[in-house]
């Protein structure tokens, strides 16, 4: 893979260490011009670190990185001038009006868009003269997006854009991102919402413990898990974990299994669900535990993630 003209972001062998701790342990991916790319993974997977290196906010320990042809470790200012960023956990002064925030940030960039249009696109026109502190969580998030778009950026980084907003706002933000995709903007989203990635992203990289586990379109990734059905078993008493039968634990029939915290739910993935269920029900009966429910489900992205990492996304 080499970075071509239509490649907006290119990351190769990226590593980042904080002292002895390695947050990013060799990440590779490319994002094409106009593509919406998702970094999916649990908290602490290294998504934010990766994105902040691309935004020029953090230095990297090793690897090659290019955004719009700039090296974020070198041409920071040129890069920042042409990208749009919405970070997690940012704030504005309480008594700053929405329009003032836009005016102020517009003054930092070479290119700038019409503020009124931007406000109306983000449904903020009637909040134009409102103090930042009086905005709801969703309105604040929309202001953050407005600031990310103030310079008409070619590449947009959205770090957990919908975390902590209500479903209504989430839908609004989703439609805005789709609008940007239609306008052929390159977007890099980090999220731990599976649905968001499935719905918005052209391609997704699943990241865990500083590494890319799998990369592809949501459909391709799901295909990797084709035939691997998810089995959920619920018992009336706690399942004796240590005594689980070999069919669950030996790794031949079951890819990964997770017992919920209450000890009564067992989740597994298997290519031969019927055989596993027969054996397991027999075993449950022998243990003298009451079987409450059995549920079978075809795989999703989250299942792929669980399958590959042995974790849930929101643990």
């Amino acid at each position, binding site marked *: 893979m080499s970075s071509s003209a239509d490649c907006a972001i290119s990351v190769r062998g990226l590593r980042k260490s904080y002292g002895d701790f390695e947050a990013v342990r060799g990440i590779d991916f490319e994002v094409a011009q106009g593509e919406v790319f998702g970094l999916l993974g649990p908290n602490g997977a290294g998504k934010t670190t990766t994105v902040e290196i691309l935004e020029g*906010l953090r230095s990297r320990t090793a690897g090659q990185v290019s955004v719009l042809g700039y090296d974020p470790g070198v041409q920071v*200012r040129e890069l920042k001038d042409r990208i749009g960023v919405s970070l997690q956990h*940012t*704030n504005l002064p309480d008594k700053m009006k929405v329009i003032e925030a836009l005016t*102020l*940030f517009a003054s*930092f960039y070479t290119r700038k868009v019409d503020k009124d249009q931007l406000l109306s696109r983000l449904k903020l026109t009637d909040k134009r003269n409102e103090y930042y502190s009086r905005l709801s969580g969703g309105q604040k998030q929309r202001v953050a997006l407005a600031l990310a778009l103030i310079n008409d950026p070619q590449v947009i980084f959205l770090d957990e854009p919908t975390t902590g907003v209500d479903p209504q706002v989430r839908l609004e933000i989703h439609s805005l991102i789709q609008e940007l995709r239609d306008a052929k903007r390159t977007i890099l989203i980090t999220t731990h919402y599976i649905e968001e990635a499935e719905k918005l992203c052209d391609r997704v990289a699943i990241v865990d413990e500083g590494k890319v586990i799998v990369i592809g379109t949501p459909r391709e990734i799901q295909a990797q898990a084709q035939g691997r059905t998810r089995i959920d078993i619920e018992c009336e008493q706690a399942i004796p974990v240590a005594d689980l039968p070999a069919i669950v634990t030996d790794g031949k029939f079951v890819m990964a299994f997770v017992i919920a915290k209450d000890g009564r739910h067992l989740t597994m993935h298997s290519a031969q669900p019927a055989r596993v269920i027969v054996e397991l029900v027999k075993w449950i009966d022998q243990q003298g535990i009451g079987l409450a429910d059995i549920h079978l489900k075809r795989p999703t992205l989250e299942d792929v993630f669980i399958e590959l990492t042995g974790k849930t996304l929101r643990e």
Partner: protein
Amino acid sequence: MNAYLTQTWINLKLTYRDKVVLFFNYAFPLIFFFVFAGLYKAERGGAIVQVLTMVMTIGILGTGFFGAGIRAVQDRELGILRRFKVAPIDAGPILISSMVTGLVNYLPVALVMILLSHYLYGMPFPQRWLSLLVFISLGVVAFRAIGLIIASVVNSAQESQILIQLLYFPMLMLSGATIPISFLPDWLQIVSQFLPSTHLITSMQAILGRGETFGQNFWSAAALALTALLATFISIKLFRWEKDEKLPASAKFWIVGALTPFILLGTYQAKTHGSLAKANMLVRDQRRNRTFLIRDVRVFIGDGSVIEAGGVLVKGGKIEEIYTAATPDPKELNADVIEGTGKTLIPGLIDVHVQLASTGGLSDSAIDPAKSIPRELAAYLYSGVTAVMSVGDPLDQVTKWRAAIRNGTRLGAELFLCGPVLTTGSAPEARQMVAALKSEDVDGIQAILSNRMDPRIPRAIGEEALARRLPLMVHTGDTKDMAAALDAGANAIEPGSTQSSTRDVVPAEVWARMKQRGVVYIPMLSVLDALGALAEGKADGLLDRTLVQQVGPAGLLASTRRILAREKGRGTPLDSGMARQNLLAAWQAGVPLVTGSGAGSPLVWHGPAVHREMQLWVEAGIPAEAALRAATFEAARWLRADDRIGLIRKGREASMVLLNGNPLKDIRDSENIVAVFFKGERIERPELFAQN
């Protein structure tokens, strides 16, 4: 550029929406202003400049440490700076706009307080308003920069609180912003010289109070500017956008780095004491500017007239008003009151012949004039003598002390000086000598002339002194020399104090010529008196006088007493009878008389001597009123300073002595000193000897 302007504009708008900022920036300094003005009784004069500069400094410290420092840390802790981090800017716009905002917010406060000082407390408008503006601005910018560098090196809000308090409190308490520096012990005064706030307040006071210029405060300004630059530069370099980015604890030493200019300035000042001297001057100005009323007092004007029960209002170091009858309510005058019932107020006394290089005491060891001269000048002031003419002293020494007393860094009698006494040589040499002395800025010429000299020499001296507008005082040997002195153009004549010179009656035509030409006679009876007492072994009386015991250095008094006991009389007995007769004749002939004691001669003590001189005159038959007039108005006129001193008259300097009793009835009451006022300052007499 646009980023800087927008940032500043929006920052300003944010400040005006923040009630806390408005309170601390505007209301808080004004509250302090009125509290301090009340505490320091600013309406009674003097203190208003101090109050104004104190409150301005408190405001500047506040805007720096709290306005800039804490605010910047808060913005980081709240994640506000994080939002700016993604934009293509460095810390420049944020830091610079913080400084500009601070300045724009602060200047109106300063202006309001200056106007209040003027309209409510009578402070004159600043003459050097541009210099003042520059200093206020430099102060705000430098302290905002210091606030920002603190914000840049701390890792949390708690750390910033600790660090700010550590810097804020010393800068508040030890700089003169709350307690005048002169109240601090010496070692703390030295510490204060390392604080930027000390230099800020001292310079602002000097500009406001003394009309100093920016140039006269250049080094303070340079240190403020340099600190502002260093702190801004380091802040930009160390700026952090996120609370998670930590700096090592050692980064805090960068603050010390930014304060380097003041460490250098402080070290320099600790050696030279230049800035402390200026601080002392400013305190002096303040004490000289108090308004007070001395009422129900007998006032001896100086020219001979007397108000039996009147009042004198002193304001701004000068005599503001003289009341010949009832005095107004002191509250209306905004004045302190000094009750004068049973007391007499006279102009400060003047002694026109003193030799500071000799002590007046007897000692086996050598005396260091660098130490004894300032002490003697203090002894004069203690004794109610507010001006003296030094004769024959080392010029470098007396010039130095004249300047120190003039600028207020040292308290003592105002010093007039002649420098070396002209004696022999040729006429051209004499001319050169007078010219050289004039270039050293002497106040008069003292010459010893004799009728046996080549007459061209005295004439040369007389002409040269006249041409250079210097009064010429001639010390004579015998009565024939007096005629020669008159021929030479002397303005004052002193008789000699040898046996031969005290034998003859001064011819009446000499007195007539002196009267006609207004040449003053300085009889110097004190010297004859002391020499006579010494010769007879009866000098203990001169040593035991209360005033002598009060002003004489203990060691010198002890060695004098020891030597007197050992020697039992020294020198040949002198009869001062003829000198007294001559004095009386001079007075009767209408010759102007002036007191010059010859202090410094054995047992003619610096300070008390002029009192003794007046007593000797009265014993010789001169009325007390004439003796007092000779020691005040006539002496001032001879010094050509009667437009400033020597009279209690509206507009003259308020240098006066308040006496118990009435010296016009009993001249010995001139030693019953209640209070000494010098250029408007009521002198703390015992502290005169505690000056270092």
